[in-house]
């Protein structure tokens, strides 16, 4: 009760105050509860209760998580672009040895024709030396063409 608390002013005499309501365990409250329950149309509330709060909470959850979700999505797109572009760049910058050997077959062993197939105008001797050098190493370490220029 409030008597133990410090309110700064003494309480008024109890007998002058309005009558206190019956205690919680009094039977009168059972009647009041029954009255409320009898008037409560719960079936009508069920659907409203389900749709209302669920929608609200779903939207509010979306509102809370849209920033992290957007960041995660952006990171995934960037990662996807990098993964897809890397092999493309690898394929275009280096000529695999197998492809070169097939080209050699197709050009019937003619080094000049071979380099011409790769878009390089080559001196016959240098073309031969460059080709031999390439086969000995397995893969060119840099621009090692008979003309000193990058193949297209």
């Amino acid at each position, binding site marked *: 009760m409030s008597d133990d608390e410090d309110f700064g*002013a003494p309480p*008024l005499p109890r007998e002058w*105050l309005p009558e206190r309501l019956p205690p919680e365990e009094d039977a009168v409250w059972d009647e009041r*509860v029954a009255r409320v329950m009898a008037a409560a149309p719960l079936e009508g509330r069920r659907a409203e209760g389900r749709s209302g709060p669920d929608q609200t909470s779903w939207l509010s959850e979306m509102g809370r998580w849209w920033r992290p979700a957007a960041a995660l999505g952006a990171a995934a797109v960037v990662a996807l672009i990098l993964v897809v572009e890397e092999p493309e760049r690898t394929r275009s910058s280096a000529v695999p040895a197998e492809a070169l050997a097939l080209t050699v077959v197709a050009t019937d062993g003619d080094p000049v024709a071979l380099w011409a197939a790769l878009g390089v105008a080559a001196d016959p001797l240098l073309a031969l030396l460059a080709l031999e050098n390439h086969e000995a190493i397995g893969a060119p370490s840099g621009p090692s063409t008979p003309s000193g220029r990058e193949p297209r």
Partner: protein
Amino acid sequence: MTGGQAESDEELARSVQRGDRQALERLVRRYVRPVHAVVAAFLTEREAIEDASQETFLRALQALGRYDSRRPFAPWLYQIARNVARNQRAAEGVRRAEPFPADGPAAREPPPDVAAERSEMRTRIEERLMRLPEQRRTAFRLVDVEGMSAEEAGRIMDLSPGTVRSHVHHARRQLRQILGEYAGDTRNTVTRKSATGNKGG
């Protein structure tokens, strides 16, 4: 009111939102008395208090679909009770205060003089109480009349215990002024009676 209970108000409210009728009954049982107490801070007639309390629960049930159970339930219900009682009071006008159990057996127990004096004081205090600011009146009603602690009243009214204590303090001081007025009136009455008695004797 809810201390130590298995289910919180908010959990019960969520169950009611899903259509659980037993949860509704537990929630109503938990708050039926506090709602009566809040409404009684606005209305004086017993029938009006009961009607407003019932209306509060029915409106709360209607609005429960929009209730956000992450927020405390008690202040939400308190707002509804306050609005219902305020509207009912405005619709009916402030009638003369009738003591809540005026016709109860307790009212007939004391001697006639004491009962009359008590009744007179109660009427005066209740009339003055109704003229106090709303929160002050409600805090006084919950704490001094219904015996709640400042913490309990604050939880319902969504106020800090310190604010509740402040409201109760000011209400007590304002109502205590009635004692002085009443003492003055009583002295005048006694003086008049004595004068009349002297004349007659």
